[in-house]
């Protein structure tokens, strides 16, 4: 799904953001990307949706070499990737509905389709009743849920999030994290950047750790207190779909993975947590 091969990125002035980073994320995985501020997390995410281009190495997203995509094709790549930021990036003068339906409008959906898609996406984040509200009328957690709904409205194959809980208090952060896990349960590959080690320890999952631009660790972590996530029967994915196994049971990290920093990259290329969950 996402493959990095010896990717390096340097910013003008010689600052190295990423240095020879290689990893592979399979379809349906839930992956934490962690590291201290300035480790290169944001740069790595921006490379995936081609906000940046690498100086060296190759990046494949769904088998497509992202670096060599011509500029006019970049929008088509981005339509397959949902992106969520720490600062939500909602447009204050637009309603929740308008914020969520940017992509359907771009795709030329009529107003009925737009309403349908917005309703579905907002229902998934529990905000279908706030469709006509303006972002500033919502709490921080609700705003982030709207941002998630916007990222999900087109059922993207990949959802990447850059510190999505950074601006939220612990309860709201937990709620938002639960949403990402639910999204993953439905089969979407999730890559979530955070420096909140407590959350990672609690939830578990595969963890990529960056430090000063280098990938210092790629390991699976069993969560100490993983949230129980399940989908309503009506929303459960069809048999054989990614996440299908996990949808019927509480989501817990598999216990047979090595844990702790520096563990070997046992999970690289393997099915994600959603698929691999018992």
């Amino acid at each position, binding site marked *: 799904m996402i493959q990095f091969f010896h990717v390096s990125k340097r910013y003008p002035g010689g600052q190295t953001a990423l240095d020879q980073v290689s990893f592979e994320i399979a379809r349906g995985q839930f992956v934490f990307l962690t590291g201290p501020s300035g480790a290169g997390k944001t740069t790595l995410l921006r490379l995936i*949706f081609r906000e940046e281009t690498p100086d060296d190495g190759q990046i494949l997203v769904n088998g497509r070499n992202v670096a060599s995509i011509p*500029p*006019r094709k970049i*929008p*088509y*790549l*981005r*339509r397959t990737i949902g*992106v969520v930021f720490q600062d939500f*990036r909602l*447009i204050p003068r*637009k309603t929740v509905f308008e*914020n969520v339906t*940017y*992509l359907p*409008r*771009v*795709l*030329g959906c009529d107003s009925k389709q737009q309403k349908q898609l917005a309703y579905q996406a907002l229902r998934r984040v529990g905000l279908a009743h706030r469709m006509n509200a303006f972002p500033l009328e919502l709490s921080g957690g609700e705003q982030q849920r709207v941002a998630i709904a*916007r990222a999900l409205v*087109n059922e993207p194959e990949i959802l990447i999030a850059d510190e999505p809980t950074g601006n939220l208090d612990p309860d709201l952060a937990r709620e938002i994290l639960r949403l990402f896990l639910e999204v993953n349960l439905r089969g979407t590959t999730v890559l979530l950047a955070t420096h909140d080690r407590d959350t990672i320890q609690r939830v578990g999952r595969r963890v990529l750790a960056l430090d000063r631009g280098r990938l210092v660790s790629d390991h699976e972590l069993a969560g100490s207190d993983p949230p129980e996530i399940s989908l309503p029967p009506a929303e459960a994915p069809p048999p054989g779909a990614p996440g299908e196994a996990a949808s019927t049971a509480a989501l817990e990290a598999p216990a047979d993975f090595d844990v702790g920093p520096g563990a070997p990259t046992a999970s690289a290329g393997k099915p994600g947590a959603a698929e691999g969950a018992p």
Partner: protein
Amino acid sequence: MTLLQAVRYFLREATVNLLRGFRVSLVAVLTIAVSLLLGGSFLLASRNLAGSVTRWRGEMRVVVYLKPEATSQDLARLAAEAAREPWAAGVEAVSAPEARTRFQHVFPTLADLVEGAQDDPLPASIEIGLRRDQAARSGLDRRLAAWRRRPEVAMVDDDREWLAQLETAISVVRGVGLVLGGILLGAAIFTIGSVIRLTAYLHHEEIAVMRLVGATEFYIRGPFYAEGLLQGLLGGALASGGLYTAFRLAHSRGAASLLPSLFAAEFLTARQLAALVAVGALAGLLGAVSSLRREPL
């Protein structure tokens, strides 16, 4: 998204932007309207002057003025000779008393000037209409030179000379109009470009989101191009309306005076008006395109 859907979206967004930034948009629209009004005024003046010249060319004539000592026999003989000239379309011999009567008739307020004179103050003349097909030929110049050398002839007045001067004046009017209109249009393009840049800046967050979700550059820039186009269209329409109002005012206040009849006898044609509005629209579009090209969104 189909092209029609995109165009509808562009126009809707552009209209919202225009209304939201009403004051700055108004400046841009007025700038383009003033430049087009000026250009349109010169176009109107040169068009009417050119029309007058064409009309006068159809009535072109050569007037041969005789010396005071020339007799009525000389007048008749020379008129007969003139009638045989191949370029003559018609000949009228005007005797000195007839010239005085005509002057008194045409200029009744100046009749006193010729009233008391014992001798006829105006010379006898031969008015020779020019055949249009012969007017441009060099043979005519040679024949007129021969007429000027005749002992009975005091002077020869050739309409073509002042018509040529008038045509030069029209070219100057057109040139000045083009230069002034061009300079003002450049200023209008710059103003529209600045307004569009400002609008784009005000929307930079939204543009970033649109880019993030996968909107194409065409989709992102389209509303701004449409906004420039609309500003230009509005400016062009405003200039056309202003020009027509000025035209009606000029006619209602001085229909018989020389200036309206010379410079504004007829209004611009529908095609010329459409061209004026189209130039406005094009200028608006150019302003938008150039501003977004200089400063990528």
